[in-house]
């Protein structure tokens, strides 16, 4: 199963994860 997020954000938004990285609920994905 997969969860896809699609969202509008300011250009200053930055992902804080890398492809292939394991994440858990509540961990940072990105920030403005």
């Amino acid at each position, binding site marked *: *199963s997969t969860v896809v997020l699609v969202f*509008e954000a300011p250009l200053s938004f930055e992902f804080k994860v890398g492809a*292939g990285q394991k994440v858990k609920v509540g961990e940072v994905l990105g920030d403005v």
Partner: protein
Amino acid sequence: LSAAWKDTPTKWYPLPLAVGALLLVAIDYRKNHTGKEVHLDEHGNEVVKLKGPWQVHVLGALPLRNLSRLWGYLNSLELPVWFRPFGFRLYSYIFGCNLDEIENTDLTQYKSLGDFFYRRLKDGVRPIADSVLVSPADGKVLHFGTISDLHVEQVKGITYSLDAFLGVENPSSPSSTVIEIPKTEHHDNKNHEVVTDEEFANVNGIQYSLGNLLGSGSTKSQQHQPRKTPTSTPSPSSSGTQTPDQTHLDPSQSVQDNLAHDATVAYEMGVRPALRRRSTSGSDVQEGHALNFVVIYLAPGDYHRFHSPTAWIVQKRRHFVGELFSVSPYMAKRLQNLFVLNERVALLGRWKHGFFGMVPVGATNVGSIKINFDSALRTNELHPRRSHPPPGTYTEATYSSASPILGGKPLNKGEEMGGFCLG
């Protein structure tokens, strides 16, 4: 048998040409008559095709939905109590589940593998980070980035249409059914309406200035008191006698409280969704903003409930009935339009930066998607062959009745939203 197994020589010989020709005809027939090649709408905006190497076409020929349902049925069977701890420990060992963090550590209490698969976690084992966007699920980040030209990159070099993925606004489409989700809170549905900044919400004859309710200042301590107009005094009870308790249960007072609560929620979220009619397709991005995406893959051993990744308001959901291909990284690299072909639930709404969409996508082993606040949603249902909706079509439900001011269902960051079930 042993001798036959060891001594019988393997003899390879070519299949007759006719068999190969029949196979090709069967594949072509299936491709053209079972909806694999589909126009999303009658205007030809997007065509979804089953594309990929031969392995993909072999998988496409399998009855994946029926297999998924059978898998779900088998995993719903109640297991003997003595077998449960052993069986679930073995499963956890194979798929890497952490049994220390599950809510109910007594494994005999999980009746089936499906029950164990949809397990809860202990409170506090998933702290929510202080960030605008957090992970909605346990899993692996497959891909992320910025969406350009309304096309989402599935893997490097392979894209799919955002419109095909989320659906396009087309209320006249006969395949789109609008369902109003029954509200669970005490609101007056008849008087619910979308209003502009300058308008007032009118509920039970009491008018509220939304500007005052939502506030435009920067402090959270602002009082959100509704303004009652002189002409809108609630009519007294016909009996003329009211006890203090009855006064407390006055419906208009309850509505007033709910409105004030919703306004406070909206203020704290920084979201004002019901104030302007805006598209929820994500195509009207504000200047200085961009559309982003991230794909998180949940492996079989992962915790399979998903949570709200931010504070946002879900305004509608679109349920796309499709195929149930595996969504593993192996398939994502090979099957184009994988996420457009598969069954999925697109939850669309707004957050403080604009459009926000969250899409749980089903797979062969986990075809059922649950949304906690949407009991009307039914996924991976058995459809008779003739009435099976073609891929690309969806049924739509709006959550506007959940809150008159917010125009949808408000969710806090980290709040559990639903999950995936086996089969």
